Every structure is written in structure tokens, then in C-alpha cells.
């Protein structure tokens, strides 16, 4: 469904991605972990066409992701994205945020879009916040609206870019719970995260990225419980025992 083939990317002289390849199959949940600056978010942004890449190819069901090409808008309707800082539209209510894509991009009728949006917000536990503006919602609530907004596009896959990193600790759980539900319904997901518990419980596959390259990949059992590469071991050790 998503094919990342030997991607290279640099910002000026700085090489941030040095030949990354992986496939994501339909219905699969892939978690990308790794230290900050390892290129995790950049890869996700490349898949969504928010960043260009210099070499290699990214294919979504066979169609090449090229930010400079007109086709990018139709590819983006098939792959939604959830951002670290939610990025809701502050001048629109929760309901309007969710309706925006269906009404203006997919040209769904307003009544139909409104019903669907209300249903989705109810699903993420915000059935009572339809008319609330993002400024009146907590971070966890905002991120759940953002997930509903991504779902409203009826995408083939959703990319999550550190969806809980900007949240107060007590709000992380509610977002992860929603993500787990979405995964359980068979959504294809690529999740950049520092939440090892989530990766362990929900991921089908975990990629460990460092220095712009995949160091190790495999099932959560393999990568998280029994990492083979010393750099993976070191990273996990520091994440799990930060005080040592």
C-alpha cells in the first residue's frame, strides 16, 4: 500500500535521510522509533508530500508522491496526517474542522458531512464538544479532533507524527486509546512515536531509525524486547531508564 524506496533527503548540506526503504501493507500498523533528529518525522512528511526528497521514490498504491505535481492533492486525500501540534483550524469549531475536508475537498454535501463528522467526534469521545472552538479544548481533546478530521477523509492510511509528544502526561492515554481503536478497525497506520507501550501493544512492525537510516526492524517483540543492534539496545535502555 505504501512503498518507500531508497529515499535520500538533505536540507542544504545536511543529509537527514540516507537511503531508507520499507513497505507498509494494507491494515498494518508500523511504528517508527528513534532518537530526535534521526529523520523519523521527515520520512512521514515525505510520504504526505509536505517535504521533497532528492533520490528514491515513495509510492502510494503505485502512484508516485511528488509534491511538485498536481496529483499530490488527490494522493493526500487517500493518506491523512495527524500532527504533533494538532494544527486544528482555530477559527472553526470541532465539527467544522472535521467537515472541512469532506465538504471542500471531497465535495460531500453539508448535511451528509455534518452527520459523519458528528459521528466521528462521538467515536473519539467528543460528542458533547461539537460546537467548541479549539482554543477551548485541552490538548488531548484537540488531538482527538485532529484524528477525527483525518478519519473524515476516509483515507486508506493515516500518518501520525509524534501525536502525543506535545501533550501533558495525563492526556496521553486518551489519545493513544483512540489510536488503538482506529488500529483495531483495520486502518493502515504509520506512527512516529516515543510511546514504547503503544508500539508494543499495537504495532505489527517497529522500525528503529538513527542517523537517517533504518538500523533495525521487526515485530515489537523482536525490536523492543530483544533488540539485536547495540544502538537499538542503547536507545531503548535510555528511554526506559532515563535516570541512569
Amino acid at each position, binding site marked *: 500500500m505504501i512503498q518507500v524506496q531508497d529515499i535520500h533527503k538533505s536540507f542544504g548540506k545536511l543529509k537527514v535521510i540516507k537511503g531508507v526503504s520499507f513497505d507498509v501493507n494494507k491494515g498494518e500498523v508500523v511504528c517508527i522509533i528513534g532518537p530526535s533528529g534521526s529523520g523519523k518525522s521527515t520520512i512521514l512528511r515525505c510520504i*504526505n*508530500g*509536505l517535504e521533497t526528497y532528492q533520490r528514491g521514490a515513495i509510492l502510494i498504491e503505485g502512484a508516485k508522491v511528488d509534491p511538485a505535481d498536481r496529483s499530490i*492533492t*488527490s494522493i*493526500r*486525500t487517500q493518506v*491523512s*496526517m495527524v*500532527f504533533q*501540534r494538532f*494544527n*486544528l*483550524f*482555530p*477559527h472553526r469549531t470541532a465539527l467544522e474542522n472535521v467537515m*472541512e*475536508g469532506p465538504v*471542500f*475537498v*471531497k465535495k460531500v454535501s453539508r448535511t451528509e458531512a455534518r452527520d459523519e463528522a458528528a459521528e466521528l467526534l462521538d467515536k473519539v469521545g467528543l460528542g458533547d464538544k461539537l460546537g467548541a472552538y479549539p482554543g477551548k479544548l485541552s490538548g488531548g481533546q484537540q488531538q482527538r479532533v*485532529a484524528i477525527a*478530521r*483525518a478519519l473524515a*477523509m476516509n483515507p486508506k492510511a493515516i500518518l501520525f507524527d509524534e501525536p502525543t509528544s506535545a501533550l501533558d502526561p495525563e492526556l496521553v492515554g486518551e489519545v493513544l486509546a483512540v489510536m488503538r481503536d482506529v488500529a483495531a478497525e483495520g486502518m493502515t497506520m504509520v506512527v512516529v512515536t516515543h510511546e514504547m507501550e503503544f508500539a508494543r501493544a499495537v504495532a505489527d512492525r517497529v522500525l528503529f531509525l538513527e542517523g537517517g537510516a533504518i538500523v533495525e526492524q521487526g515485530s515489537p517483540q523482536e525490536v523492543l524486547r530483544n533488540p539485536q543492534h547495540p544502538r537499538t539496545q542503547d536507545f531503548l535502555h535510555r528511554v526506559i531508564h532515563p535516570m541512569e
Partner: protein
Amino acid sequence: MGFWERAADYLPLLMEGVWLTLVVTFFSVLLSTLLGFVWAVMTWTRIPILVGISRGFVTIIRGIPIIVQLFYIYFVMPEIGINLSAMQAGIIGLGIAYSAYQAENFRAGIEAIDKGQIEAAHSIGMTDQLVMRRVIIPQAIRIVLPPYGNTIIMVLKDSSLVSTITVAELTRQGQLIAASTFDNMTVFTLVALIYLALSLPLTFLTRHLEKRYSQA
């Protein structure tokens, strides 16, 4: 005859001027808004040639006095075969001159919108055009409106410059009456009061908007 009797004599002629002042102001603001928006969007696209044209234009316009621009359009253009009425030349001149200030204002408004929102809009498949219409403009308006009010006031006052290219607006009418009656005191006091009366409502509206949006 006291001030008010004389004022009553001059007022009908001055009011003809007021009408033209309002017409010049209205169309100059309209033109400067449209052009200013074009320059601002050209910068926003980040396409080098468009950015270059926009920047270059704004720089040139801001570096030349408005009155010289008006002379150029009214007196020089006919030499290359473009004949405009004084009214047309005045509106085009002021409109172009103020488009440079409008562009700066609009650019600031557009750039104040958080990049993350624009990315989010792109990520649900919005085209640049749709992002502009649904995400940027509705929010930028709040930022742009108070300075926009100030610009209208400035255009209103600077519309007096078109008197120099023979448009019989308020200032020009005043000059004509003063020249024939030698009653400079009454005439120009009236002219000043009329400009003030026209700009005060705009000043209050602008202040009101500034207050309202600084709270939001």
C-alpha cells in the same frame, strides 16, 4: 457677513468636491486592495520570479512620491499614446501607489498564520487556492482589518493630491473658491473640517476593530 453665512455660500460648491473626493477614495482603495492582494499572494507562492516581480514593484512604488507618480500617469502617459481623464489618472495613480502599502499589510496578515495549519490543510488534500480561501484569508482578515482602516484614512487624505492634476475634488474646489473670493480663512477652515468629518468615523471604526481583535 459672519463665518457661517459665508460658509453657507461656499458649501454647495465644496460639496461637489466632496462627492469627487469620495469617488476617488472609494475606487483608489478598491484598486489598491486588489493590486495589493495580488502582490502579497505573489510573494506567498515563493515562486522566485513572482516574488521578484512583486518585491521589485513594491520597492519602486514606495520610493517615488505619490505626486510624482500622478504627474507621470497624467502628463507622461499621453506621450506614449495612453490618454486618461484626470479622474482616471488620479484613481489609477493613487490605487497603484497605495497597493504597495496594502501589499505589506496583507503579507503580514498572511504570514501571521501558523504554518502548521497550512500543512494540515494541505494534508487533507486542499489546493493552495483552497488553503488561501478557507484557512488563511478568514484568519488574516482579523489581523489586516485595523491597519486597513488606517490605510483608507490615508487614501482619503491623499486624494487631495489629485487636485494637482485638475480633478475638481474638495481641495481643488477650495482653491478655486479661495482664489476668487480671497477668503482663505473661511474656505480652508471649511475644507479641513470636512476632511476631519469624513475621516473621524473611520478613525473610530479602526480603533474599535483594534480593540476587538486584540482581545480575541
